[in-house]
């Protein structure tokens, strides 16, 4: 799961938080409920994860705020889907 977390951290920093310190993007930092990931960015991130890992999130998995609010939550879901 740690490799997924680091990949997510890299991707979010590069795409959505350029210039932000890596240390500040902690595993439990709220991204969705804080507004850091708006609707366009959230959809981009989810689409990217599905493509990269060859998985598909159903509506209720993706719509569950806890699954896509933090790096921890996202990595956990991705890891469980990867099998």
């Amino acid at each position, binding site marked *: 799961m740690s490799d997924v977390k680091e990949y997510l951290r890299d991707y979010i920093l590069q795409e959505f938080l350029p210039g932000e310190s890596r240390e500040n993007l902690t595993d439990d930092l709220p991204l969705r409920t804080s507004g850091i990931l708006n609707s366009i960015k959230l*959809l981009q991130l989810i689409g990217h994860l599905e493509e990269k890992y060859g998985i598909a999130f159903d509506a209720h998995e993706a719509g569950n705020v806890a699954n896509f609010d933090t790096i921890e939550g996202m990595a956990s879901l991705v890891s469980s889907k990867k099998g």
Partner: protein
Amino acid sequence: MDFSLTPEQQEWQTAAIEFAKTSLADDMIARDHKGEFSRDLWQKCADFGVQGLPVPEKYGGNGADVSTAIAVMEGLGYGCKDAGLLFSINAHLWTNSVPILLYGTEEQKQKYLPGLCNGALIGANGASEPESGSDVFAMKTKAVKKGDRYILNGTKMFVTNAQVSDLIVAYATLDEKMGVLGICGFIIEKGFPGVSISKKIDKMGLRTSPMAEIVFENCEVPAANLLGREGRGAEVFNCSMEWERSCILASCLGTMRRQIDKCVEYARMRKQFGKPIGKFQSVANRIVDMKVRLETARPLVYKIGWLKDHGKSAVAEAAMAKLYLSESFVKSSLDAIQVYGGYGYMTECELERDLRDAVGSQLYSGTSEIQRNIIASMMGL
């Protein structure tokens, strides 16, 4: 990047101007006054190929690239004074036909696209609601899955083409708590049980483009009419908005060009104090400003065509073009009236209608404020 029109695009645009001048020129002042949509002109546009522009030939369209579609819409905006008709066609194209083309199943495309191209079907888009406009994903219209269908309940506001539409691409949420990822897109036939058109909405401009509310009351939509994946309707909606912002103002480029030609002609002909008014710097400078706005707005729109034709995203570019062009259009419409003086204020001069039509461009497909939000977001702010 080369934004000059290819010979084929130039040919399309010239033909569009000629078609608009000869076939779409009817009693605009009276129809604007009455707020009357013309199904006859709609069909003429379909016969010319406008509604099929971005749709591949296998689905009954022309398979034109985006730059060509923009060139044609610019030509229509120059030749056709019925901005409401063009607005209706734009709404039909970019928020109905294109989402079906990009997100529809093969069956959906084969079923609906030919009719949307040939004029038989008119498309509408239901997204805004009484309590969710700019914050569109806070929508309250609910979709509940029951067996092989979804049951929709809710009201959609400001639906362009509502009264004349046959097919509505509408959005609803599975659960408000799911936020943006609970939104679903649907293709809804007007005849589905539970669809009704509520009151007609009168507008300041674009009056020949019909608008009303659509109410879904236990509306039964077959699951086969889900557009895109369940819970990914926001993606469909964002995509349709990007397309709309990219292309909807191309016709306004043509109108701005027509205004300039009209003002130059008038400024040369109209004499005051013994000379043409165009010889007064205060008049000439206004027309120069109109020209500068047009020439700076035009590459923004054609750049989007280039980006999309090369398979690239144009989210920020579409927002920038929409923002700049709409605000330029309002300023230039005001300038055109000022060049004409008191005559410009008269309905007969047909410039006051351009101004009323132009004001809407700063509001539809996302207000100027929302365009700035999008641009800021894409800048990492």
